[in-house]
């Protein structure tokens, strides 16, 4: 088992707890109430928020809180083999996973009977798309002036064989000895994990290590989002 640790070298030379280059920007979709772009390595996510706004049909309205809806979509050309535009089952599942990741962020009770819609489009997919989407959505919600408890950080932890690493690329996901993908969303102020998925084969000890690494990185990503929002604010808002 130890042999594989020594032999493993990441294709792009990154250290085990090093993530790809991240950049984020708020206010990229003028029509939306809030928006943001989040780029990590070659993965690019754009999120737009519309809301709070009127919710129809009436029977869907919740008199005590807003309804949060999320849609996740991979653009056809975001992947190597063109993806058909219609939502796949994966897209539908991820829309639900992302909605569940964001629900604890927003003071939904402050917007009774209304809807808050989050749209995420991936224009370039090189693994870690849902995490990039969640970071973009967190920024977009803040950009929209929607009342939130805090910002959310999301990153894919994982393992190459038994070696715990952060932020696998698509190439690394196909690691011959088996890779484990562990996307996490963490809310630092509330200390809550609001999205957690794992695909692969990992020991309990490996899992604990990956989880901790991922949580710490999520905290850093929240700081990055804070900076991006402040920079955008200070630049002054152009209509």
């Amino acid at each position, binding site marked *: 088992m130890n042999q594989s640790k020594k032999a493993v070298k990441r294709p792009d030379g990154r250290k085990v707890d090093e993530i790809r280059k991240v950049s984020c920007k708020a206010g990229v979709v003028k029509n939306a109430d809030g928006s943001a772009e989040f780029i990590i390595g070659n993965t690019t996510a754009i999120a737009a928020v519309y809301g709070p706004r*009127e919710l129809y049909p009436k029977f869907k309205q919740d008199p005590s809180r807003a309804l949060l809806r999320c849609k996740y979509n991979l653009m056809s050309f975001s992947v190597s083999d063109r993806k058909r535009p219609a939502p796949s089952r994966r897209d539908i599942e991820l829309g639900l996973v992302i909605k569940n990741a964001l629900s604890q962020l927003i003071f939904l009770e402050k917007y009774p*009977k209304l809807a808050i819609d989050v749209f995420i489009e991936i224009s370039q997919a090189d693994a870690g798309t849902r995490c990039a989407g969640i970071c973009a959505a967190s920024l977009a919600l803040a950009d929209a002036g929607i*009342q939130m408890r*805090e*910002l959310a950080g999301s990153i894919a932890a994982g393992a190459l064989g038994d070696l715990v690493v952060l932020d696998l690329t698509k190439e690394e996901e196909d690691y011959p000895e088996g890779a484990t993908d562990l996307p996490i969303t963490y809310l630092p102020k509330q200390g809550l994990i609001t999205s957690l998925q794992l695909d692969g084969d990992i020991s309990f000890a490996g899992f604990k290590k990956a989880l901790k690494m991922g949580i710490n990185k999520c905290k850093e990503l929240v700081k990055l989002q804070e900076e991006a929002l402040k920079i955008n604010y200070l630049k002054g808002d152009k209509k």
Partner: protein
Amino acid sequence: MNKGIITESRSVVVPGETIAIGMNYLPGDGTYREGEEIRASLLGLVDIRENLLKIIPLKGAYIPKRDDNVIGRIKDVGYSAWEVDINAPVSANLLVQDATIAYVNINRTDIRRFFDIDDYIYAKVVKVSKSMYIQLSTKDRDYKKLNIGLIFKIKPVKVPRVIGKKGSMINMLIDETGTELIIGQNGVVWIKGNKRKDELITMKAVKYIEEHAHERGLTDKVKELIKGWKKDESK
């Protein structure tokens, strides 16, 4: 962390950022309390008044509050009430008994003679229920149907800047442009001047204030700008 105020007044904060620690601070708009901490719930500027902590938001939809003055557009007319678009996520309602002090027999009167679809009104928000039922009134003296003028929207969060401390900015605008000007707290602006050109200058000035809201000495700057634009117009 020690008790007290953590952030500087007028500094930019993000949701979740701690503004102050201590039970003696009051969480105002845009903040929330978690244990001893008061944290921001909005992206914006910290506003500290003694121990009331608020956030002045950069953006945000207009969420109506009681006593707000708003400019609305009649969306629909019913038997005894109107549905009004006040630039909020939900429509507002104006009941006929809140529209006028005159006695109205709804069985004999078509209330459209007061306000018809697409009319604009200047009204007061008298009630906002927990489930977002918004009630307006145009009974008091200043509220009325607005005659044809220039109507446009600005970001609701910028309205306080356009009005200014004790109305200093809006009064300056009225004096310098010679137009009538009403700014609804819901971000809707109504301008009526003798000349179209004057109305456009006022709109230009309001939009300038919206974009440069964070700058100091804005009132004087805009006053000078208006003087310049008026000169250009008369050339």
